[in-house]
């Protein structure tokens, strides 16, 4: 094999590495029982060099990029080198040392040794990680909204040996078994992480045999340098400047507070700096996240938009700096609870970075960069956990993976994806109804797209889900719900409107069982025997009895561009499909339909003119016109929805001459004082 390092040779080598990291994921998906792994594809695999620098990261979940590296770095810093031996594997889940998103995300890390010399030589590390069913602590599932400290959240393992030179370490195995609720399920998942790491080791041995150790080392470095250079070139396509933005984390599990997250993004030549120093102090609820998580949350939108055609390795990250301040909501320190930190603070970081990138990328001279602008996703993983006995009296915990069914942001070139799941979650899928009903004591009444949930725009935001279920072959049980995006909806981009946000409702006395027995399948909330009760963003310990109904409505992604510029025929098609209501077509899009559902051209043109004229009456604000309104009320006018909250406003900016909508913003005026949030 030639050792010349031309780009073709390096690329051929890098593709082989990528192939290995993806194959680890295939092993996990195929061998795992967890719906979190197989359906939501909520896991990550990567390969690092001997120092823990990432050399290849399979893009299953980009969110864990920061975590993955931190885990290896921590093991290298804490385990003596002579105790790191061939056949060893380490288990890690501690947000505070190994950087995991939360303690129920468990990773197995394996050092890889070359056996080409007289002594085995450490050449690489691999990692496989996923969200497991439970890892102990207060709450089933180890998502502990009641926690005020991390001590009670879960068992924490800071990178300890679970396999010692090929032998399972029984002591650790037994400690884990003893501390968790569903040991069989979780231990089986850990087995599948081990299988994935074994596969990586085998294939890395082949690679060393094929290329030789020195060549492998050299190629890894060149691949990093190539990626770094490409990222620097891409950043140079952006105008230099300093941009600031704010998002708000909601409801910390105890307190319905608002916690500002602030970022200053500086683009200077070929570097980008994201500075989160001014964000809220950490709070005593489970919404805080680690600095490693914040890094992954910054990287995710970057890798999907600006850098979507470039490989992921340590070189990719070199030109990008993320600054956080210890003790803030995005760089939590012990003992702040963090069990929902990535879903709350992490995904808000994704939204904030998506918005900042949209503004900067739109100003680029490079068409690829401009076309990759997008509006924020809903990014609310709407968790529902139902604990109820089945007909045999056995308690069956039911985590509904339909929670990953919210909508995607509209793009500069296309509508957002319906039911996309989270931005940082490529390959997301949601379960078949039959699979959920087979496994859990519930019967779904409906699962449909949530009407008008995607933000209106020239390109519409993707829609979320509207679903309802009732206990089935079960006397009922206890329900817990959590939505991250409830009072502060995701913004639109460039005149696109915000999306609806997410929320749960409980219908006590709904009589769904009676309706079915009478031969009627209820088709919506109005068909139920009792009115729905809107639940808070996080609410726990609800009783759901026979015939009662839980309804989840997940929000969509933000819209892109002034909705008055959307092709009227597309609006009519959405109305006919039941995705957009006639009222929303009129209010948001200025489209009027005739009795047959076709666009009424003249009436639409006249209405659009009237809406533009109305905009020209808005208040002057510099060189633009502005209208400021309470967000919830303004969304309801457009047949959309978010939970009402004082101080959460929608600001709309229009061009004084044309009446074109230039920009919409969600502005939160009443953040909890960061100091008081402790």
């Amino acid at each position, binding site marked *: 094999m030639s050792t010349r390092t031309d780009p073709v040779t390096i690329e051929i080598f890098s593709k082989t590495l990528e192939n290995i990291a993806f194959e680890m994921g295939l092993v996990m998906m195929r061998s795992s029982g967890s719906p979190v792994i197989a359906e939501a594809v909520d896991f990550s695999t990567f390969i690092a060099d001997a120092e823990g620098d990432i050399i290849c990261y399979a893009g299953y979940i980009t969110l864990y990029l920061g975590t993955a590296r931190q885990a290896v770095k921590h093991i290298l810093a804490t385990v003596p080198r002579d105790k790191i031996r061939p056949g060893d594997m380490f288990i890690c889940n501690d947000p505070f040392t190994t950087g995991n998103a939360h303690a129920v995300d468990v990773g197995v890390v394996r050092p890889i040794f070359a056996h080409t010399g007289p002594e085995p030589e450490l050449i690489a590390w691999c990692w496989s990680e996923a969200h497991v069913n439970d890892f102990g602590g207060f709450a089933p599932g180890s998502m502990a909204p009641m926690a005020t400290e991390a001590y009670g959240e879960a068992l924490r393992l800071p990178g300890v040996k679970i396999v010692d030179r090929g032998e399972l370490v029984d002591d650790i195995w037994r400690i884990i078994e003893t501390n968790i609720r569903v040991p069989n399920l979780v231990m089986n998942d850990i087995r599948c992480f081990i299988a994935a790491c074994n596969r990586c080791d085998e294939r890395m041995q082949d690679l060393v045999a094929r290329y030789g150790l020195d060549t492998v080392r050299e190629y890894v470095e060149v691949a990093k340098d190539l990626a770094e250079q490409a990222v620097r070139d891409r950043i140079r396509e952006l105008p230099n400047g300093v941009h600031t933005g704010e998002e708000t984390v909601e409801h910390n599990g105890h307190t319905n507070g608002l916690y500002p997250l602030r970022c200053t993004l500086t683009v200077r030549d070929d570097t980008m700096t994201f500075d989160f120093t001014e964000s809220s102090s950490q709070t005593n609820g489970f919404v805080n996240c680690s600095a490693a998580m914040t890094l992954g949350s910054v990287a995710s939108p970057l890798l999907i938009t600006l850098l979507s055609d470039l490989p992921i390795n340590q070189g990719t990250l070199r030109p990008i700096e993320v600054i956080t301040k210890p003790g803030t909501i995005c760089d939590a320190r012990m003992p702040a609870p963090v069990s929902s930190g990535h879903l709350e603070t992490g995904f808000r970081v994704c939204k904030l970075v998506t918005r900042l990138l949209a503004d900067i990328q739109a100003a680029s001279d490079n068409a690829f960069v401009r076309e990759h602008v997008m509006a924020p996703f809903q990014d609310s993983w709407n968790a529902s956990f139902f604990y109820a006995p089945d007909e045999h009296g056995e308690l069956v915990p039911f985590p509904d993976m339909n929670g990953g069914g919210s909508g995607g942001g509209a793009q500069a070139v296309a509508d957002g994806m319906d039911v996309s799941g989270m931005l940082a979650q490529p390959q997301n899928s949601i379960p078949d109804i*039959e699979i959920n009903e087979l496994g859990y004591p519930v019967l779904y009444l409906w*699962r449909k797209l949530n009407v008008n949930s995607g933000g209106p725009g020239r390109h519409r935001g993707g829609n979320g889900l509207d679903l309802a279920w009732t206990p*089935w072959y079960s006397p009922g049980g206890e329900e817990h719900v959590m939505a991250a995006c409830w009072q502060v909806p995701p913004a639109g981009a460039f005149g696109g409107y915000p999306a609806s946000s997410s929320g749960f409702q409980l219908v006590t006395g709904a009589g769904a069982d009676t309706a079915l027995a009478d031969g009627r399948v209820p088709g919506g909330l109005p068909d139920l025997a009792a009115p729905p009760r809107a639940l808070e963003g996080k609410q726990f310990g609800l009783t759901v009895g026979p015939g009662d109904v839980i309804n989840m409505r997940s929000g969509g992604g933000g819209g892109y561009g002034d909705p008055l510029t959307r092709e009227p025929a597309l609006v009519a098609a959405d109305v006919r499909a039941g995705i957009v209501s006639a009222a929303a077509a009129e209010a948001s899009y200025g489209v009027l339909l005739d009795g047959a559902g076709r666009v009424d051209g003249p009436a639409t043109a006249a209405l659009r003119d009237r809406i533009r004229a109305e905009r020209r009456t808005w208040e002057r604000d510099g060189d633009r016109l502005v209208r400021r309104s309470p967000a919830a009320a303004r969304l309801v006018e457009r047949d959309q929805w978010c939970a009402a909250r004082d101080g959460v406003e929608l600001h709309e900016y229009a061009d004084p001459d044309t009446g074109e909508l230039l920009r919409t913003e969600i502005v939160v005026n009443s953040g909890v004082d960061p100091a008081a949030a402790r």
Partner: protein
Amino acid sequence: MEYQIGCDIGGTFTDVTAVDSAGGVHVDKADTTPGDLALGLIQALENLAGRVGVPLTELLGATTRFVNGTTVVTNSVAELRGAVVGVITTKGFGDNLLIARSARNAHRDHHKQLNLPQIVPRHRVVEVNERIDRKGRPVVPLTEAEARRAVSELAGQGVEALAVSLLWSFLNPEHEELIARVAAEQHPELFVSVSSRLHPVIREYERTMTTVLNSFTGLRVAEYTGRIERELAARGLRVPIGFMQGFGGTLSAAEARERPITLIDSGPAGGVIGAQALARRLGLTDVVTADMGGTSFDVSVLQGSEPLVTQRVMLRDQFLTALSKIDVLPIGAGGGSIAWLDARGVPQVGPRSAGAEPGPVCYGRGGTTPTVTDAAVVLGLLDAKAFLGGRRELAVEPARDALAREIGKPLELDAAGAAAAVYRMVTANMSNAVRTVTVERGHDPRRFAMVAYGGALGIFAADIARIAGIATVVVPADAAVFSAHGLLASDDVRTRARSAMWSGGDASGVAASLRELEAELVGSLTGAGYGADRIDVRWLGEFKFAGQQWEITVPIPRRADIGSADFTADLDALRADFPRAYEAEYGAGTAWVGAPVLLMSVRVTATGRVRSLEPTPAALPAEPPVPVPSGRRRVHLPLTGEDADIPVYDAPSLAPGAELEGPAVVEHQLTTIQVPPGWRLRADEWGNHVMTDTTSGAQA
């Protein structure tokens, strides 16, 4: 004389092969006629009859087997052109196809994360007030009036076909059958697909998608099969036509009309089945099949000379179905694949293709972006004057300019250097695909031989094989029309699955399912004229540990006239053995300790064994004949970067048993074979070209 005819209607060409009872093989082709495929087929058959030297009616009259592979279904799905379909589904779940279980895919680029195209717009999905639960209990019974309303509503919208798919219908098909009956009574003109008949297994999304696609493609297949049946009968064909399925194996026209979607991807299947027959003939057990066309490179594995079958096939990278088919991995690397530089300045090849129009730059039809074919002609591997038997002259200079401009200049390479970079990149991509189907599935490539076909692959095959660790490459005699010949090797295969949901205890229900499915399939084969001695039946089970998402396929021993108790004992034994089967797949220590083993569904496959006419080998001389080159050519060897004058051989002039050493080029009318340095090529007694890596210690 007796004949068997295989006919593969592809996107560009309709290929035909006839084997006669004296062992003679005749091949020809004609342009495919997309408007009416029968025209191109007849033309190809006329050409073939000319080769055989008899009138077409005489050829067809003496034909005892006629097998057809067609892209009708593949194209219908690829182009999203099919019937106007209406869907009837359970109330509350009409958005199923829009929700699509979340359509996120593996692409990081959000431009590739878009909503799926909708074959059925939402307004042609009608919900009916009915509900069956997970025990098969009709919680809300479907009334006949409600069924009538739904059928009428869709008929009123002018649909041509119905797809009926209700929740839990695989446990209780009553409601679906009611709708089917109402539709048959009120609108007998409609093509109707019923999910519980097509695939009575859990997971409503893929069951629905399969049902919808079946209806979508149904009319075209009915029209197509009817038309070629009539046209061929009018020209003297007296045997029923067998239609190739993507699963491998053929179906009768009547069955094809009932389950049209099973014809999808029958072209690649024909090639794999042909490679299987070739491998048996040559005594090869472990084979990688590789097919390179204009837009894609398709690889598959024959392990112990059996093709792998994949379940839950994803079509167009978009539609998840419940179909099973021969496991072929396609990658975007064909002769027309475009070479480009990515943002790092690294050369990439494909997946974008210049297609047939405008095609590669060297075709001179207006293409300006360099392709793999352009690289091959610039390197000198492809003779610009002899392309397609001299029917088309290739323009070398424009290809050279395009490569120099698009790839060479930024990388500071000349045109030949740029062509070599493209060659190496595409070869690496294809080699990775070969590794994916071998190493990653636990096979050692050194035990494998590669069967390489498709007009373009002979140039790359040896280098792909060497990178993948394979030491033997077989380029079959009819490499350019290989799939057509392969069709003749196909047996007549029927397969059906049914939900089982068994986790221990009395298994008489499972046994009954297997027997019913078997009786149905054997009946169908018997009706097609197969005697009991020519029918093979296999039983398969989809097992998993309770709590797992996906199943592993395990054969169930089939014992005739087995009692319920014995059958239960057999299943119990499989259950007990499952951890071992599982660890064989995923490695020691991965089996789920303590989790119950579930049998989710069973499948019966019945094969009617056909009698294929075999080609007759030529006599081998005692001494290998010495081949004589027809000339020499200047070639830029892509791996070493050297320019060399290498000998060129005319394939038909290579006598059986002739051997030659690389570097050399062997030219056939429709294909070119590169023998790189370090390889030896031998012409065998069947006209195949077998290349061996002389630098490798491994033998296939």
